[in-house]
C-alpha cells in the first residue's frame, strides 16, 4: 500500500517533468498531461476505495462474468474503436480514451484463478492445460488483432502462474527457448543454426535416458527448431510493419539513427547522460525538450534516468523488485488457492511490465509498447493496475476469513 502511493506520487512527478511546459506551471492545469494525470490519480484512489468496500466474494463469484464482459469489450473495440498510431485499441470519449486491453489483464487473471482454483483441476491433465491456455490466448489473440502486441505479450506472463501451480518446468523452458530461437534465427545464417540445433539434439540424446519417449521428444523439439529457423524469416515478413521495424532495430539489422532506432538511441542518450546523481528535477534537457519520443508513456523511465541519475534509477528498480517480491510472499501466505493464484498473476504482470519497459529503455529488450506501472501517463493503465493490485489487497485483507 505504501509502495503503491509512493509510486503514484513519483510517477506523477515524472510525468510533470517529462511534459513540463513553462507556460503552464500549475499542476492542476487540465489542458496539460500532468493536470489530466492528476485527475486520473484522483480517480484511481476512488477506484481503490470502492474495491476495498466491495465484498471479496464478488470477485470469485463473478470472475467468469467479468472475463466475459472483457472479451466482449475487446471484440467491440475492434469494430467501434478509434485508430491511434496504427493500433485500433481505443474507445474515445471526448478528449479521453479508454484502452480495454489494459482492463483485460485483471479479468483474465480472475478467470484463470477461478479456473485453476477449482479443486478438481490438475495442471498435469492435458485438458486442463488446453483450457488454461485458451483463457490466456483468447484475449491475447484479440489484442494482437488490435495491433497492440505489447498488451498481448503481457498476458503470456501468466505462464509464470501456471508454472507455480504445477505446470512442468520444461514447458517454461520450452517457451523461452522457442522465443530465443526465433530471435536468433532472424540474425544468424540458417545453415549454421541448423548444425547447432542438431548438435544440441545429439548431445541431449546422449546424456538423457535412452527411452523411446525421450527420443520422441528430442526429435519433436528438433523438428520444431528447424521449422522456426527456416520459418522465422518467412513468417517475419508477414509481421505488421512497425513491429518488424522494432524487432529489426533491436537486433541491430537496421541501425539508421535518425529514423528507426531513434527511440532507443534517444532513450539511451537520455538515461546515459544522467550520470550518478542525475541532472536534477526538471533539469533534464533530453526529455524536457522532446528528444525522447513517447517520453511520458512508454519511455517515462528516461525522465527518471536523466533527472535522477543512477541513484534514482536504482531506487525505482528496487521499488519494483520490492513490490513484486512482496506480492509473491503475500500470495504464498493465502489460504485460498484463488487468492494465491490471483496474487501470482498480479506479480507476474508487474514483473513483465517492469522487465520489458525498463529493459527497452536501456536497450536490453526490443521496443515493445507497454507502460511502466504507475509511472507512465494514461488513465487506462493507471486504473487497470490499481484494480489489479487492489483486488488482491482486498483478498489479502480477508485471507483469514476465506476458507482453503
Amino acid at each position, binding site marked *: 500500500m505504501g509502495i503503491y502511493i509512493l509510486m503514484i506520487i513519483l510517477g506523477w512527478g515524472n510525468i510533470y517533468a517529462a511534459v513540463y511546459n513553462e507556460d503552464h506551471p500549475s499542476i492542476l492545469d487540465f489542458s496539460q498531461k500532468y493536470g489530466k494525470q492528476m485527475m486520473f490519480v484522483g480517480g484511481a484512489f476512488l477506484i481503490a476505495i470502492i474495491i476495498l468496500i466491495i465484498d471479496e466474494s464478488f470477485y470469485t463469484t463473478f470472475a467468469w462474468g467479468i472475463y466475459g464482459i472483457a472479451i466482449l469489450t475487446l471484440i467491440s473495440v475492434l469494430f467501434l474503436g478509434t485508430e491511434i498510431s496504427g493500433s485500433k485499441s481505443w474507445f474515445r470519449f471526448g478528449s479521453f480514451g479508454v484502452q480495454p486491453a489494459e482492463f483485460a489483464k485483471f479479468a483474465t487473471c480472475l478467470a484463470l484463478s477461478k479456473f485453476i482454483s477449482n479443486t478438481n483441476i490438475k495442471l498435469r491433465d492435458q485438458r486442463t492445460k488446453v483450457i488454461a491456455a485458451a483463457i490466456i490466448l483468447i484475449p491475447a489473440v484479440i489484442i494482437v488483432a488490435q495491433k497492440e502486441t505489447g498488451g498481448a505479450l503481457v498476458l503470456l506472463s501468466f505462464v*509464470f502462474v501456471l*508454472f*507455480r*501451480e*504445477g505446470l512442468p518446468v520444461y514447458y517454461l523452458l520450452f517457451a523461452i527457448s522457442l522465443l530465443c530461437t526465433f530471435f536468433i534465427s532472424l540474425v544468424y545464417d540458417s545453415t549454421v543454426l541448423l548444425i547447432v540445433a542438431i548438435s544440441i539434439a545429439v548431445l541431449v540424446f546422449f546424456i538423457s535416458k535412452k527411452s523411446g519417449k525421450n527420443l520422441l521428444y528430442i526429435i519433436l523439439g528438433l523438428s520444431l527448431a528447424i521449422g522456426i529457423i527456416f520459418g522465422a524469416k518467412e513468417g517475419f515478413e508477414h509481421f505488421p510493419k512497425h513491429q518488424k521495424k522494432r524487432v529489426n532495430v533491436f537486433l541491430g539489422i537496421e541501425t539508421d539513427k*535518425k*529514423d528507426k532506432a531513434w527511440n532507443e538511441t534517444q532513450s*539511451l*542518450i*537520455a*538515461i*546515459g*547522460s*544522467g*550520470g*550518478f546523481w542525475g541532472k536534477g528535477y526538471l533539469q533534464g*534537457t*533530453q526529455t*524536457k*525538450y*522532446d*528528444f525522447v519520443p513517447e517520453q511520458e508513456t512508454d519511455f517515462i523511465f528516461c525522465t527518471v*534516468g536523466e533527472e535522477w*541519475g*543512477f541513484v534514482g*534509477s*536504482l531506487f525505482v*528498480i*528496487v521499488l*519494483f*523488485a520490492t513490490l*513484486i*517480491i512482496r506480492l*509473491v*510472499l503475500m*500470495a*504464498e501466505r493465502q489460504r485460498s*488457492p484463488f487468492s*494465491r493464484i490471483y496474487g*501470482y498473476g498480479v*506479480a507476474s504482470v508487474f*514483473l513483465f511490465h*517492469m*522487465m520489458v519497459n*525498463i*529493459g527497452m529503455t*536501456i*536497450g*536490453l529488450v526490443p521496443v515493445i509498447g507497454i507502460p511502466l506501472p504507475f509511472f507512465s501517463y494514461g488513465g487506462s493503465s493507471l486504473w487497470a493496475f490499481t484494480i489489479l493490485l487492489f483486488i488482491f489487497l482486498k483478498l489479502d485483507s480477508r485471507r483469514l476469513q476465506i476458507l482453503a
Partner: protein
Amino acid sequence: MKQFADRKYIFIGLVVIVSFLYVVRLFYIQIIEDKYQLDAKNQAFRFPTDYPIRGYIYDRKGKLLVYNEAAYDLMVTPKQVTKELDTNDLCGLLGISKEMFLKKIEKARQAPNSPRKPSIFEKQISAKTYAALQEKLYKFHGFFVQSRTLRKYPQNTAAHLLGYIGEVNKNITDKDPYYKDGDYIGISGIEKAYEKELRGIKGKKVIMVDVHNREKGSFENGKYDTLAISGQNLTSSLDAEMQLYGEQLMQNKIGGICAIDPSTGEVLALVTSPSYDPNLLVGRSRSTNYSLLARDTIGVPLFNRALMAYYPPGSTFKLINALIGQQEGILFPETRYPCARGYPVMGGRPACHAHSSPLDLMGSVQHSCNSYYAFTFRSIIDNKKYRTTEEGYKAWREYVLSFGVGKKINSDLPQELKGFVPTVEYYDKYFGKNQWKSSTIVSLSIGQGELGVTPLQMANIMATIANRGYYYIPHVIRYVGDKKYIKPEFTKKNYTKIDPKYFDVIIDGMEQVVQAGTGRIAKLDSISVCGKTGTAENPHGKDHSVFVAFAPKENPKIAIAVLVENAGFGAAWAAPIASLMIEKYLTGKITRAELEKRMFEGNLIKDKDKVEEKKR
C-alpha cells in the same frame, strides 16, 4: 497445491536477477560510458559565440571614419540535418541552387570543418533574407543564424590607412587560439595595427534547444555564459577633411602626401594615390574586388606609397647635409662655395642651374645649389678627423639615421618600411673594398644615388627641422578607448645628433625658398611657409616632383611632404599641392581657386599611359 511452494524461489530469483542485470546495465550506461553524455550535450546545446562589437574609429574632430553594420551568417551542423529538410524551401530563401546546397553541405562536413560542429553555410546574408529565414528556421534542423558585424567607411577616404578586415586563415588559427575558423581579423592599416584594441573579447553562450532546434533559453540561467566585451573606440589623429582634400588633389596622379603635426607627431593626413573606396573590401564581394584591385599593375592601388615607396629625396636632402656639415664644424653660415653651372672640381658634375655665385649657406638653400653641397658633402666625408673614407661615411650615415631615415620609425602603422641609406658594406660590395671615395658617392650630397626615403620619412624630417632638432614618433591614433589612453612611446622626444642652434640658418633659408626661391608658388600671404623643392631623378622616367615644408615658421603646426611621380620639377606639382594643404589646414579655406582647380584637374596618369604606349 503446497507441493509447488518452493517454486516461489525461482520466481523471486528471476525478479532479483532481472533487477540486478538492469542495475548493472544502468551503471554501465550512466557511469562508465560517457559517450551518451557527449551525445546529449551535442544535441541539446548550442554554443554560439557572442561576438563583441568591433571598436569604431573617429578622426581628430570626432568625425566617424569606421563603424559596424549588422550581418548574419547562416551556420550548419551537418550531422543534425535531417532527411526531412525542405531543401527547395531553403535554397529558394537563400537564392542558391540545389547543387550549390549539396556542395556547401559537403564543405561543412570536411576538414577543417566537421559534421558534428557548426560551420558557416552561407556568409553574410542580408537583413531581409535573415528576416524571412528566421521565421522558418525551426523547420531547418541543424541550421542556425549567427550575427556578426561588417565594417563600414562613411567618409570614403583613407582606405590604405584604415586598412581592412578579413577572415582568418589556418596560419592564424594555428598560432593564436583566440581566433576560430570564420573569425575576422584586421589585415592591414589601423585595423591590423590596433587589432587587439579594436576586437574586444568574445563571449560564449550556452543555449538549450529542443528536438525541433528551437531555442529554449540559457543553460542554468546563463551561469556559464560570458558576455562579449566590446572593442575600444579609437580616435585617429587624421583630419578626415584634410585627408579627403589631399586625395582629391592627388587625383589622377601617382604619389603620396604625408602631413604631421610636429608638436605631437600626430599624422594629419596620409594620402596614397591611386587609392580605392574602402567599402570595396568589405563583405561578400571582398575577394572579387580585391583581385580586381590587385590586377591593376600600372596604378597598383593596393600599394601604400606613403609608407612603402622608396623615393630619392632629391634636393630636399640638402637640408640634412647642411645640418651635418655645421655640426661637424666644416660648414658655417658664412661659408661660400663657387658654382660653375656645376661642381667645378669634378668637371661640372653634378650639374647646376644658373644662379649668382658664390652663395653662402642660406643662399645655397634658397637657390638649391648642387655645387655647394658637393663641396659640403666631400668635406664631411674627407674630414681629417676620420682616417679613412669608410669612417667618414659611417659618421655621416649615423647623422642621417638620427633623422629617422634608413631605419624603422616604429610608428603605429605596420606597413611602414625602413627606407634605404647604403652601408659601407653595400659600397664595398658594389665598388670593391677601398675602391670608392667621397667623389664616387657625391650624388648623395644632393639626395640622389642609392638613397630611398618614404613620404612618411620625408615629412618626419620636416617635423624634426620644424622642432629644431627632435621629433615625436609619427602615429595615426591619438587615443585608445574612452579613457583617452596615449601610448607612452608617442610622447617621447627623439633627438637628432644635431645641436638645435644650427637649425635657424637652415630654416631662414627655407623661408627664402618660398619667399624668393625655387618654391615661390607655395607662398601664402598670411603665413610664413618654410619649404624646399626637390626634383628627384628617376632612372625609370621623368623626374619625380618633391616638396617638403612646414608652417608657420614659429610654433609650427604642420609639416608636410608631397611626392608626385614623374611630374618634373618640385615647383610644378608637389609645391602647389603642399601649399594648398597647408592653407586648408591652417586657415580652413582656400584663397587660390585657380591653382586649386589646376591641381584637381591635372591628369598625369593619362600622360604616363601615353609614354607607356610609345615604349611599346
